[in-house]
């Protein structure tokens, strides 16, 4: 065993706090494990909140309060809206996907350094570069020669 990362670590599941929903506790424990996993291996993960069983309104509120809001918020506006908020735990992001009318389509907790939806894609960047080049290209020389001279 030569590296610190070779030492196996078992994350103990914390007991729910008094009054805390066991669902919230389970999600938080899972987030903790996934965050540790990301730091150890770089493997990003996502929890789809729609698939979490028994996520009623009160439990949802408790979970949102428990994760709270961190330093970064961003919004993608592309007909649909995606609200991205880093929670109080860096690397744990809360993404809310809304359809055109504003209703929530799905909500996801992503465990990663930066959610993919925020990153620019090389294909889009190349297209953007071409547009920028066109915008900065010198205008074609104007043909100011009077009609009668050209004749």
């Amino acid at each position: 065993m030569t590296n610190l990362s070779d030492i196996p670590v078992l994350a103990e599941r914390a007991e729910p706090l008094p009054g805390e929903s066991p669902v919230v506790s389970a999600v938080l424990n899972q987030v903790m494990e996934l965050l540790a996993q990301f730091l150890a291996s770089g493997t990003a993960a996502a929890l789809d909140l729609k698939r979490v069983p028994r996520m009623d309104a009160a439990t949802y509120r408790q979970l949102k309060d428990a994760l709270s809001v961190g330093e970064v918020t961003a919004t993608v506006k592309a007909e649909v809206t995606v609200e991205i908020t880093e929670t109080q735990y860096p690397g744990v992001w809360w993404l809310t996907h809304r359809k055109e009318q504003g209703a929530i389509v799905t909500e996801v907790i992503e465990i990663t350094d930066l959610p993919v939806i925020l990153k620019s894609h090389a294909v889009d960047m190349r297209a953007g570069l071409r547009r920028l080049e066109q915008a900065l290209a010198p205008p074609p020389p104007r043909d100011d020669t009077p009609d009668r001279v050209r004749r």
Partner: protein
Amino acid sequence: MNTDLSNRVDQGSAQTEAGGAATFDEATATRLLALGISRRRFMSYCAGLASLLALPQAMVPRLAQAATSATLPSVVYMSFQECTGCLESMVNSFAFGGGTTIDNLILNMISLDYQETLMAAAGDQAEDLLLSLTAKTGYVLVVDGSIPADWDSGYFISGERSGVARFKAAAQKAGLIVAVGTCASFGGLPKANPNPTGAMSIGDLMKGLGITKPLVNVSGCPPIPEVITGVILYYLSKGMPQLDSLQRPTVFYGETVHDGCYRMSSFMEGPLAQAFDDSNSRKGKCLYQLGCKGIVTHNACASVRWNQGTSFPMMSGHGCIGCSEPDFWDRLNAKNQKGFYVPIATGSGHSRGLPCEVCHTDGDDYDD
């Protein structure tokens, strides 16, 4: 047209099954750019789709890849003893809603090459098309309606062939068979007592004919639109879904309607609604005593909902009629009675150990 479905499944970009959302591959991003669709908008759309299909968010790039693929799987949609309600449901789904570019893109995920109600061709022209399509291999055969088991009964003849003959010929080279609706999945209303036409489900007919192609039952009368298209999307992006004992995809049929019903809490704790529109019914109490079959009905009504996710029957104060289960029309309920408004016989309060007053504050004692 490339009909090799297996090629569509595993061309995927690098991402892990359990991982977070991965970025789109070069081809997908280029295709979206060419179509003028915002990559981020499409990524958000696919995130919602993955959630609907109970797929991990890591599947988002693969869904996008399937949706933007230039090769389209051929779908042959054949109708037998049915009412066209299932097709009506499907054409109203989010995928076929039309209007936006993304919807059209999803519509273009499949090549719906044969559907008698939707296509312009008729008569010999339609028959020739069917024969030419089913002469190829690997297409998806969607079947709507039950089929009279006796091929010469005369109850179903189309194109001078019996239903059995038409199905048998079409199934030979299919890559996947999808039985859409309860009639195709379990016999449905045509099979209801006394079953005058000898109607049979597609699964039973396949057994009788010795056809061993993969079969997915998408039951419901009709099925939820998003469930019909969702199953096709799932197959295109991930392959065969996990099925329950009745060949239904567990993604949509793994839980009962009761499991996700907002009225469920009063089922155990009471009080129950005793009459339609009584005070308990209005307060959102359980409709079990009014014949709701949600507790024994596996479907996604309470999670996916109907009309673009607006509601499901219990939200309108009506119980589930159990339409996605076999023989729902003839189900024997309490006191050996049939009927949508007769409480189910199994799972009664006494057998669940509930206090008497939960069920018997009022009205008939069906559980005795």
